[in-house]
């Protein structure tokens, strides 16, 4: 087990106009479960592969423990990897798949058998050790891929979207199993996913990437409560945070004729560059107020989820020249949800307003 650290690590593909991973600085603690998340093409898989030694590091360095592994081949890094499509050797049985790395390392046959059996027991694969991958279900294959990793007791687990080939129900189940397994083994784990729900539910900390640049790394709760910029604010959470841009006026930001109050210090900093301010508020941070008291919206669609209801609304009375996304999602009580077509007035709960500089997109609050 070991710490992992990226120091100004960059990867530039030949002929690409920007780095796939741009000066990544990231320290992962011993035993930590760190999730790399972001939209496709954000560099999360590339970062993982740089750590694995499957991708070159063009500048900067990568450390596992105290060891600089920047230039080491994968086999010298003491890592194990779970691939998106599992990459099980089709001609080997489950047992052979799991024991292959140990065999290559020259471990004694009896010991290999013991360790494979142990891993198989943990993963509920004991009955399938003699089967070929072809004869397994998707979920079983996924577990074999996990087994192949844990048999080696490596310093670091690397997982590249290991759940994306499973159906939705199995994905949720396996999610918790992987988390539990990782806690039990206590092995440092770097996990890549494009699914922010997966990231939030599994990670001790989550690193959000976009266009090869690390946006923010923090615990799931902190990411949700204090997103560092507009991108993270919009990416984390489902339904996404409402983000609206308006003019800074005395005492707040003007949205659809109404003024959302923003503390003076924040307002000044946010509006410093061009007088515009982006504010964000989550669907659950909104509550209904009396006619004419808050931001006016018109309800387009009502989504009843049983426990909650979501109102998909549009800002009404757009008399000002705001450049905003005019859609606002509101969570309400399902029993008393308004109907489509109704006009409502909304206010943001105290302390739940996120304020961003509209020009730099950075958080100011």
């Amino acid at each position, binding site marked *: 087990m070991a710490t992992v650290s990226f*120091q*100004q690590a*960059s990867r530039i593909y*030949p002929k690409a106009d920007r780095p796939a991973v741009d*000066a990544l600085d990231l320290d992962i603690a011993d035993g930590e479960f760190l999730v790399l998340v972001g939209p496709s093409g954000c560099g999360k898989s590339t970062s993982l592969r740089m750590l694995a*030694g499957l991708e*070159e590091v063009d*500048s*900067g360095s990568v450390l596992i423990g105290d060891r600089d592994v920047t230039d080491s*081949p994968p086999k010298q890094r003491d890592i194990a990897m779970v691939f998106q499509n599992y990459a099980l050797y089709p001609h080997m049985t489950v047992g052979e798949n799991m024991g292959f790395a140990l065999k290559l390392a020259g471990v004694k046959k009896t010991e290999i058998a013991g360790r494979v059996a142990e891993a198989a027991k943990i993963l509920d694969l004991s009955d399938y050790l003699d089967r070929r991958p072809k004869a397994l279900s998707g979920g079983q294959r996924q577990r074999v891929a996990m087994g192949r990793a844990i048999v080696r007791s490596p310093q670091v687990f690397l997982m590249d979207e290991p759940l994306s080939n499973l159906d939705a129900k199995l994905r949720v189940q396996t999610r918790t199993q992987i988390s539990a397994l990782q806690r039990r083994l206590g092995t440092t784990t770097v996990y890549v996913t494009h699914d922010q729900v997966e990231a939030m539910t599994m990670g001790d900390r989550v690193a959000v990437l976009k266009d090869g640049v690390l946006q923010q790394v923090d615990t799931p709760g902190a990411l949700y409560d204090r997103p560092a910029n507009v991108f993270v604010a919009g990416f984390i959470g489902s339904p996404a945070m409402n983000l609206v841009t308006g003019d800074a006026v005395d005492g707040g930001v003007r949205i659809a004729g109404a003024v959302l109050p923003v503390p003076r210090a924040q307002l000044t900093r946010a509006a410093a560059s061009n007088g515009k301010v982006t504010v964000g508020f989550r669907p659950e941070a909104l509550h209904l107020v009396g006619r004419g008291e808050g931001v006016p919206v018109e309800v387009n669609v009502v989504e009843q989820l049983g426990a909650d209801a979501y109102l998909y609304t549009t800002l009404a009375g757009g008399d000002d020249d705001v450049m905003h996304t005019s859609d606002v999602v509101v969570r309400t009580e399902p029993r008393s949800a308004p109907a489509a077509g109704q006009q409502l007035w909304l206010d943001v709960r105290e302390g739940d307003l996120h304020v961003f500089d509209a020009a730099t997109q950075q958080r100011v609050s």
Partner: protein
Amino acid sequence: MTIASQSPREALLTAPAADTTPAPDRTPPPKRRTTLTRNRWGYAYVAPFFLVFGAFSLYPFLYTAWVSLHRTSLSDIDGGTWVGLENYRNLLQSEFFWNAARNTLTIGVLATVPQLCMALGLAHLLNYKLRGRTFFRTVMLMPYATSIAAATLVFAQLFGRDYGLINTLLEAVGLERIDWEAGTWSSQAAIALIVTWRWTGYNALIYLAAMQSIPGELYEAAEIDGASRWKQFLHVTIPSLRPTILFTVVVSTIGAVQLFGEPLLFAGNGTTSGGSSGQYQTLGLLMYQQGWSNFHIGQAATTAWAMFMIILVVVGLNAVIGRLRSRADR
């Protein structure tokens, strides 16, 4: 597995640091990344192939060009006098060359055109739901498994003047015996038939494979549009098969230009003249005759290059036609 690039590292270092904090003063040592060595493995894997290939294909190929510029005799293969393009001049003035070229063309057309048409029809038939599918396919490939020598000997027997089955049957129905080998057209048709017999099944399987990869929805769409079976064949099957057809045309043409074994063995006496008046002398056979009967290695090399040029022209024409047609489709 990895893509080689050293330049981005330099590029990054020289690029002005934009808004981020300047990169730490970690001057990278000028060593090669170990992962870069992986590139060299590629050469290791292709090396055995290219060693054999270079020694026995590439080098001879180029050396043939060298030989063709010399007057070289088989009895003195390492000697030879430089004659420049004289061999080529002689070749172009040689009636033997033009005769062989003509014969190669006519036999080639006779052997290729009907063969590919039949193969296409056959593939169409094989594409139906059939009982004994494997049987039919396998049987039709048997001629392909038969060697040129064996096939030619059998067909020479069948086409024999005195004891051949075909003449016996002709006589039985009241027609005259034909001296197949002596006539120009008859001998060329017979040789074309041998080629056709050996390759039709093979090409039918190639077409069949291509037909089976045409998505069924295309036919369903055509059927909904009211296209008959025949129209579907013309407007769905044939266009989808066009690359395959072009491919088989090229391969068959290359084979036809090199035609050698059939005309050599057809007469049954092993002469290299291609019949008493050269009526089925081909370029491949002429080249062999020049080199190994007349011992004019330089001449033979010239003929070999001429054959290659013909192939290049044919392949080039095919490529042009293919490109024009696919452009016309757009």
